[in-house]
Structure formats: structure tokens, C-alpha cells
């Protein structure tokens, strides 16, 4: 990395952020209402300790309010949604009443109005869509939709035939497949999406009639098909650009997720695979199984509680150890008078350059029971039996957990070093100069300028790091595979002490006895945890930036 690049970055985002940062320093935190609020002047008069307590308290006081805001926001969103639908319906009715005959026909034959008014290209597109939709619904869509409530009536049938040949009687089993729950659910979901798309297009069609009438009434000309095409590279260029990416996201992320959310309300597992034995709707039983305490059978709620706790602990340590150590390393390398800066950076960047799975698998084996470290220590006679880095379940497998966090530091510091370097170069130098003139020591400069600045700017980044670490599949799965096994929770899909929710989820869909519906339940719960943490913290963060500030 050359300093020139960093200077460029500095130039890019210097002024705005620095100003906001200074504003942030001089005013006490926002959003604190239920406790005594100090004005700027009063705040400055407080002693150091009082200031700390004040800041500390105001952070936590803000949490309930942020949570409340979260739910109020959801409520408002839902209310807004229904109000919007009401408005749309009213508009549909008034358009029909007030519209001319062309518009009225368009309610049944989509695109008719457009064609009649000379916008042939648009009209044909609408018409084509309607024809395709109707043909699809009649030929297959209707069937899938009608099967959706039951998810199929009959699974595989075994037909036993008794055949007598050459005086010997043999029984021949043949299988006949009937319904397929998986396909019913899949195509049912597709059909629902298709219907929604149809309703939306129908609504657009009506809206277009309304605007076309308006334009014609005012004596202007309508756009021709040629204009429409031209606008695709000009005024409507964003639609052209977004068409492909959004289709991909819709087909490969939105629809699968919708499908998987539905799976959480079924009993889809290895015993009900949807083909041999059909699966069916099971209501909230999956959630009940996951969240309520059961004394008999497999106690999923105990496993869930334990894994969730470890997931949060892991995410906390993985995020903050990397953050502070990475910043520390960056400051060491960037200090004046340190030589070979480029060499140190290059060595650290090696862990990013080399595909993670290689380093993770290698390090994992290095610390295994008969790996390099243990064998070497045994050879030298320092230990008499191997240290179970990945196999010792003592004290809740504390050793494995610490090892995972340490190795994650090895993996993660280089990224943080890069990020921190960029930001450190960006701190206005005049802050340091004035601090030096006032005689501030190195530590004071760090704690009063560097650290607050870093925290201020990287707040959102820390949040994404935290949620990213909660779902950090590779590090855990490739390092430990979840080991050591948690004997207490045996049966709950081979849970280990270092398993995160995400690796647990993977084990549920990947083992010999997959439990898809439970995996979906876990996935939804992960989403809820991540969403709540994100929204609550995001509401409190002082540095939530206005997007336009950077432009």
C-alpha cells in the first residue's frame, strides 16, 4: 500500500466526517429522555467520573426506548401498508367510474387501452403477460394452488404382486409415486409470486390508462414505442440496469427464503421427505419444540439456549479482540520512525491473500490431538498426554473456545489493520498538534482523540462485524467442526461446544437424519436475533450518517 492511496482516501472523506465528529464530541448523546439530561455547558462542568457514568447510563437508558421504537416502527409499517392498499383500491374504483370505455375494457383485457391509444408496444406486453398468466393458471398453477393447503394426499405406494413362474412364487414389489409435497410447496410458492406479479401488473395497466387519459385531455402526445425503448437507456436506464440483478435476487434469495420460512411451519424432515412420506402443515410445533423446555426426548430448547449464549459470547470477543488488536497493530506500523512498514503489512496481508480454508484447515490439524503441536510437545517430554485443544470438554470446553477466539485473531487482525490504517490517516492532524501544544501525553492523545474518533466512525462497521461473526460459518466449521461434542445435549443433531447457531443449522440439514423444519426455525430465530440487535444498536449509534453527506 502506498501512502498516496491513503492520502486519496483521506481526501475523499476528510471534511464532512471530521466536522460531524467534532459536533458529536461537543454535544451529549441524543435520545436520552427518561434520565436527567444535561446541556452542553452542564455536561462540561461534570467531573471525569461523572461524565463517564453519564455516558454509560445514557447508552443503556436508550436501549429500552430503541426496542420500543423498533416495535412501534413495525406497527406503523403495517398500518401504513394497509392504508396504502386502501388508497390503491379506492383509486382503482374511481378510475373505473370516471374512465372512458377504453379504460373500462382494460380492466378485463389488459393493454387494450394502450393499444387503442396508439401505444402498441406497451399494450402488447400487457396482453402477452395476461395470456401467459391465464394459460399457466389453467394448465398447472391452479393444481399447485389447490394442493397447497394439504401438501398432497398420498405418498409412495408399494404394490406387491405375486408372480408364479416355472412353479415358483415370488413377490415383486413395485413403487408408485403420487404426490410430492416438496414440489407442491415449491410450485405453490411460485404460483403465489406469479399471482402477486399479475395483480401488480394489472394495477400498473390501470394507472397507465389513467395517466394516458389525462395527457390526451391536456392536448399533449403520448409516448410512442420508440420513445419507450429509447428511455430504457436514458430516463429509465436504472430499470435496465437493475433488471438482471433484481431478478437474480428474487429467484435465488427472496423466493427460497419465503419457501424456507414456510417450511418452518411444516414437519419436513428425514421421516417426512415429501416423496415417500408426505409432509404436512404443522403450525407452530417447530417453534414450540425449539423454544419450550422438554424433559423427555431431545431437549432442543436447552441446546438452543446454550448455543445462542456461546454465539453471542463468540461474536462479542471475536469482534472486539480483532478490533482493538487490529487497531493496535495498525498504530504500531504507522508510527513515525518505524522502518519496513511495507514488509510488516505484506506479511500480515498474507492471511487474506491465501484462501481461508487452507489456513484454517491447516491450523486446525496443527492443534489436533495427534497434530504437530501435540506431537512436538510429547517428543520434548513437556507433556505426557496430548492436550485436547479440540477434544477436551472440561469446564464447558473453555480451552477450545479460547483457542477458537485466538485463531480468529490470527485470521482477522489483517483486515482490521487495513481498515484502521485508512481511518487513522484520516484523523485531522490539527487535533494532535493542538493536543501536543497543550502537553498531552501519548496515552492521552490515544484515549481522547484516536479511540473516540475510531469508535465514532467505525460504529456501523462494528455492528456489521458483530452480526457477521454471529454467522461466521467458516472459522468455526473448518477449525473445530463444532467439537468437542457436548454430551449433555446429545441427540440434538450432534451439537458441539463450539457450535454456533449457523453451524448447528448446517448440521441439521446435512446429517444423515436431516430435520429441515427445525433448521428453518433456527434460521428464523437467527434472523430475529440479528435484526433486533442491528435495529436497536443502529438506533443508538451516534454516527448513523446521512447517506447524502458523502456525495
Amino acid at each position: 500500500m502506498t501512502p498516496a492511496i491513503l492520502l486519496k482516501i483521506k481526501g475523499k472523506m476528510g471534511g464532512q466526517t471530521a466536522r460531524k465528529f467534532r459536533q458529536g464530541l461537543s454535544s451529549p448523546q441524543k435520545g436520552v429522555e427518561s434520565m436527567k439530561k444535561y446541556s452542553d455547558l452542564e455536561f462540561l462542568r461534570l467531573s471525569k467520573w461523572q461524565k463517564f457514568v453519564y455516558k454509560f447510563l445514557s447508552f443503556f437508558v436508550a436501549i429500552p426506548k430503541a426496542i420500543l421504537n423498533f416495535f412501534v416502527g413495525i406497527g406503523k409499517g403495517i398500518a401504513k401498508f394497509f392504508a396504502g392498499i386502501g388508497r390503491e383500491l379506492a383509486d382503482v374504483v374511481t378510475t373505473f367510474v370516471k374512465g372512458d370505455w377504453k379504460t373500462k375494457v382494460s380492466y378485463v383485457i389488459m393493454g387494450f387501452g394502450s393499444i387503442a391509444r396508439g401505444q402498441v408496444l406497451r399494450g402488447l406486453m400487457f396482453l402477452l403477460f395476461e395470456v401467459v398468466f391465464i394459460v399457466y393458471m389453467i394448465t398447472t398453477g391452479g393444481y399447485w394452488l389447490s394442493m397447497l393447503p394439504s401438501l398432497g394426499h398420498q405418498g409412495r405406494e408399494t404394490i406387491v404382486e405375486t408372480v408364479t413362474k416355472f412353479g415358483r412364487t415370488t413377490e415383486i414389489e413395485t413403487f408408485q409415486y403420487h404426490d410430492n409435497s416438496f414440489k407442491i410447496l415449491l410450485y405453490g410458492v411460485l404460483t403465489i409470486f406469479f399471482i402477486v406479479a399479475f395483480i401488480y401488473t394489472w394495477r400498473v395497466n390501470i394507472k397507465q390508462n389513467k395517466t394516458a387519459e389525462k395527457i390526451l385531455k391536456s392536448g399533449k402526445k403520448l409516448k410512442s414505442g420508440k420513445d419507450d425503448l429509447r428511455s430504457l437507456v436514458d430516463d429509465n436506464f436504472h430499470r435496465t440496469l437493475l433488471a438482471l440483478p433484481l431478478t437474480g435476487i428474487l429467484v435465488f434469495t427472496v423466493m427460497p427464503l419465503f419457501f424456507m420460512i414456510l417450511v418452518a411451519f411444516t414437519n419436513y424432515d428425514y421421516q417426512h421427505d415429501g416423496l415417500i412420506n408426505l409432509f404436512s402443515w404443522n403450525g407452530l410445533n417447530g417453534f414450540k419444540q425449539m423454544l419450550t423446555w422438554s424433559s423427555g426426548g431431545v431437549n432442543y430448547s436447552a441446546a438452543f439456549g446454550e448455543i445462542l449464549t456461546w454465539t453471542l459470547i463468540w461474536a462479542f470477543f471475536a469482534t472486539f479482540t480483532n478490533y482493538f488488536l487490529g487497531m493496535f497493530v495498525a498504530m504500531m506500523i504507522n508510527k513515525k520512525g518505524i522502518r519496513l512498514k511495507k514488509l510488516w503489512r505484506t506479511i500480515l496481508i498474507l492471511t487474506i491473500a491465501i484462501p481461508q480454508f487452507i489456513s484454517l484447515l491447516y491450523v486446525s490439524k496443527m492443534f489436533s490431538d495427534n497434530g504437530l503441536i501435540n506431537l512436538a510437545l510429547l517428543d520434548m517430554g513437556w507433556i505426557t498426554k496430548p492436550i485436547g485443544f479440540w477434544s477436551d470438554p472440561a469446564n464447558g470446553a473453555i480451552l477450545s473456545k479460547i483457542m477458537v477466539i485466538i485463531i480468529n485473531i490470527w485470521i482477522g487482525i489483517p483486515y482490521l489493520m487495513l481498515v484502521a490504517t485508512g481511518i487513522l490517516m484520516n484523523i485531522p492532524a490539527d487535533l494532535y498538534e493542538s493536543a501536543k501544544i497543550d502537553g498531552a501525553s501519548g496515552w492521552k492523545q490515544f484515549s481522547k482523540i484516536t479511540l473516540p474518533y475510531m469508535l465514532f466512525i467505525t460504529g456501523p462497521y462494528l455492528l456489521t462485524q458483530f452480526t457477521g461473526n454471529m454467522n461466521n460459518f467458516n472459522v468455526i466449521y473448518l477449525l473445530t467442526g463444532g467439537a468437542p461434542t457436548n454430551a449433555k445435549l446429545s441427540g440434538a443433531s450432534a451439537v458441539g461446544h463450539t457450535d454456533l447457531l449457523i453451524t448447528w443449522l448446517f448440521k441439521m440439514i446435512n446429517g444423515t437424519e436431516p430435520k429441515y423444519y427445525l433448521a428453518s426455525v433456527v434460521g428464523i430465530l437467527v434472523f430475529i436475533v440479528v435484526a433486533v440487535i442491528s435495529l436497536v444498536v443502529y438506533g443508538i449509534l451516534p454516527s448513523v450518517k446521512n447517506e447524502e453527506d458523502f456525495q
Partner: protein
Amino acid sequence: MNNEKRHMGMRTLNAVSNTTIHILLVIISIIWIIPFFCIVMQSFRVESTHMVSYVIPHTWGLDNYKNLFAEGSFYPKWYLNTFIIAIFVAVLQTLIVLCMSYTLSRFRFKIRTKLMRFMLILGMFPGMLTLIILYNVLKDLGLTEANSVPGLILVYVASSGMGYYVSKGFFDTIPKSLDEAARVDGATRAQVLYKIIMPLAKPIVIYTILTAFMAPWGDYVFAQYVAHLVPDGYNVAVGLNSWLSLDQIANNYTKFCAGGVLVALPVGILFMCLQKYYVEGVTGGAVKG
């Protein structure tokens, strides 16, 4: 006099702290390099194939590398699979990400903020959840197991639009006045993109290509699930990991090291050559989110 003394004291203090930092940096560097040093050393070990208690081989040789390409070895196939996937993903994903990020950065259309918020929420679901259905759909299309390469390309590329954050941050920094000036001169939106923005966006294009190219080399989950225990469809991550399973590790450990080195070399060198673009992307993108 007094002042000078204080000055001298500061200087020695500074020298001491700098020496300490140098020593620390050396220690850190050693820790960071050790695993890579070990893996390279062990890939040249000839006398045994299992894990041993020493690092420097007793007998040196290229046997492990030769074994990788011996008859009946799946390694060349895995390597080729991953390489094909990486090339396709690098090209297609870059196109999609650039379309997405450029649009979200430059255009102000009605559903823009809603769209961004929606994608943020989508990103909070564990993507792994979609494995089950994607596997079943790909299986119906015949794109799993031995044919996993096109299936994986499809899966990687299709949802890549959600990773627009870093390059959007970059486009945000290109002044809008450039676009406006060109628009006043009569350029269409598309012409603005090709003629004005693209030449300026070289760093972010290279960054996107680089990250897109590197990701498939390290993907384990999707590749493993889609290949479904058929070695012909593995990528290097799944393949090399299969050599470390309990029943294989005794015979394949050194081969794993050699295979790992052969993967790490080209990818690592490519990365090192382009690292300045990577650094720029990471430092810029992290702050702007």
C-alpha cells in the same frame, strides 16, 4: 538547558519505544508466517504421509506434488472445477454488482431507499437456509453432483447483487457534477456510464473482480452440499477437506499440504499484485458501509 534535557529525554524514550515496537512486529510477523512455513515444508516431506512432530523434512522430494497429478487422482479435476467457477463468477458477478451499485448510487427513483432497506433485511437471514431448496431445484435441472460447476456458478452469481455496498461507496465519491455536465451536453444515461464513469471506476472494477475471483476458492458450504459426495463435482476446498477426514488423513496429509500450496500460490500472487486495489476497497468501504 532544562528544555534541551527534556528534549533529549523524549528522544531516548522515543527510541526505546520504537525498538520495542520493532521487536513486537518481528514477533508478530513470525507468528503470522509460521503456519505457512510449516505447510510448505511438509509438502516436500517424502519419508511419511501422516502428521509428524517435526517441521523440516528428513528427506526432501516432490513426491507429494507428483501424487496430486498421478492417475486416478481427482485433484486436477477439482482444480479445474474451481478455476472455471472462479473465472465465470469473476466476470458475471462484477457485471451484476456494478449495475446494482452504480444504479443505487446515481439514480434517485421511487423505490430506491425501500429497495436498499429490503436488501439489508434480506441479508440478515442466514443464506445457508436457501441451500435445501436450491439443491433440490438444481437437482431437478441436473446441475448437482458431477455437474455441480454450472449449478454453483448460477448460485454464486444470482444473488451477488446484494453485495453492492463497497462499490456503491466508491461511486458515491465520484462527483455528480460530472454526470450533469455530460447530460447537459446531450449524453444519454447509458453514455454517461460508458464514457464518463467507467474510466474513473477502474480501481473498484478491479477490486470487485478480485474479490469475486477469490471467493469460490474458499467456499465450502454450497460446494459441499451441491456436490453431494460425488468427487467429480468437488471444488478444491471440499476436495482437500475430504483428505483430512479420519480415515484418509494418514495417507493424504502431506498431499493436502502440497495441494494447498498449489492453490495458495496463484491466488496469493494474484492478490499480492492487486493488493493496492483491495486495500482501497476495504478502507473506503468499511467506513461508508
